[in-house]
């Protein structure tokens, strides 16, 4: 509780500092040569706040936010599902894994954001080029974690399940999948963020809807307050998505020991 208060205090302090540094004429300009330059470059917190209020009050933001969230959700879901599936397949099939290994390494080390223009050509300027970018970003994070997770299953556990009569399919369901899941959840927090990156970067490069589009438009007219408003809305959404993943994780991962809870008899 004390911690929460201190955290809010820090936020308040940052906003006050922001306000003090940018409000024209409040303190004498010490870097810029004119009093309103700081506000021009860094925006003003109260104006940013009113932009956000205006967006939600007028409902203007909702279609844009909806599009961005839809792109994020689709990119995340498709990327995570295909990462899980292909990760399981390659981890359990040494031949396929050996053949594809250099290509996977190659695709992973490629800065995949450079694919965005190609996706725009392939999938057009609608949502699918953004989804495709999100998928390529999310896929590898989840894929590598699943691959690692399956590889690190204790051989004892597998031998035990086999002795108890598990078939290959039952091994997959009862041993490999649950074992990989803890690694997957560790990566999902990252993956949500990357799905967002895919959506917004895609929108920057060419779109007619979305929060990234709003930000780009505002930037074009040097409307820094609106740019900051867009950034804040995106950050809030990312936080909410991340905590949603956290909730799901806690529901599914009840078996994992928490600190201070082990060996309680």
């Amino acid at each position: 509780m004390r911690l929460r208060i201190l955290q809010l205090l820090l936020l308040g302090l940052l906003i006050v500092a922001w306000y003090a540094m940018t409000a024209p004429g409040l303190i004498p300009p010490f870097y810029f040569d004119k009093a309103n330059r700081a506000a021009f470059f860094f925006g003003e917190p109260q104006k940013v706040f009113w932009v956000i209020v205006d967006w939600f009050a007028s409902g203007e933001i909702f279609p844009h936010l909806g599009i961005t969230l839809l792109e994020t959700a689709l990119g995340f879901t498709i990327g995570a599902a295909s990462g899980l599936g292909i990760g399981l397949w390659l981890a359990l099939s040494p031949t396929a894994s050996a053949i594809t290994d250099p290509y996977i390494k190659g695709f992973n080390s490629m800065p995949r954001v450079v694919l965005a223009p190609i996706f725009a050509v392939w999938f057009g300027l609608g949502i699918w080029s953004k989804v495709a970018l999100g998928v390529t970003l999310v896929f590898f994070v989840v894929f590598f974690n699943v691959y690692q997770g399956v590889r690190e299953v204790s051989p004892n556990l597998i031998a035990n399940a086999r002795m108890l009569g598990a078939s290959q399919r039952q091994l997959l369901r009862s041993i490999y999948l649950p074992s990989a899941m803890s690694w997957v959840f560790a990566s999902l927090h990252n993956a949500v963020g990357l799905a967002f990156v895919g959506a917004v970067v895609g929108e920057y490069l060419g779109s007619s809807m979305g929060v990234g589009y709003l930000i780009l438009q505002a930037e074009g007219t040097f409307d820094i307050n609106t740019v900051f408003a867009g950034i804040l809305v995106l950050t809030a959404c990312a936080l909410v998505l991340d905590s949603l993943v956290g909730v799901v994780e806690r529901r599914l991962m009840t078996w994992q020991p928490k600190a201070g809870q082990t060996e309680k008899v």
Partner: protein
Amino acid sequence: MTQEVPALALADITCRFAARDDASKAYTAVANATLNVARGEFVSVVGPTGCGKSTLLNVAAGLLEPSSGTVEVFGERLMAASGVNRRAGYMFQADALMPWRTGIDNVVAGLEFRGVPRAEAVSQGQAWLRRVGLAGFGDRYPHQMSGGMRKRLALAQTLILSPDILLMDEPFSALDVQTRQLMENELLALWAEDRKSVLFITHDLEEAIALSDRVVVLSAGPATRPIGDFRVDLPRPRDVSEIRMTPAFLDLHREIWAAMKEEVLKAYEQQKAI
């Protein structure tokens, strides 16, 4: 009795492992080992550390294919390629419980794999939890249990399938002395109910004598093979902590230790030399 087909017959088993970097430097873990376990017999295998006891057990379980030699289970040839030994239950040295399953779900895992309906499996599982003294702990996860409780859970998980042969790989070596003796007594009590054939691996000679009908001594590795076979004629039922004090036990211990001592020293010298 002697005419009967043994529950488990390992004949002339040799296991060679290729060295990782040089195929010509193969390591022979077990060489020409022959070992029989009769129906209803409790056989312990003792030997110095690192002598290939677990290798022998993995061969018996069908988890590992021997380089040469045959395994017969109730007269039927066991081929590792066509699957594990379906008539055997295996209790591992290390924890092999599924950490994401509660106690009851771990116990019924084998029944579940065999397609037993959930309700029936759970009622059998609850009965087994009671038998190993874990009634009321069915909804705990393994990490919420003590080492001894996890061993009892593993025992229930193995025994619920009522295997004809029980393979045990130093199952109690990680436990403290008191818990261990309790577990040994519990194991003997459960075993006395329906007299399975047991192949019990241990490095602890006292444990081997206290539990078994027969103790087999292995030589130091590499190329481990049985070098001694001792019948234990101590009366049953036994209490493992009391039987250790009896003169008959001490005589047997002296006799078997005399055979084992040289091998233990040999193994120790080898490990020091590396």
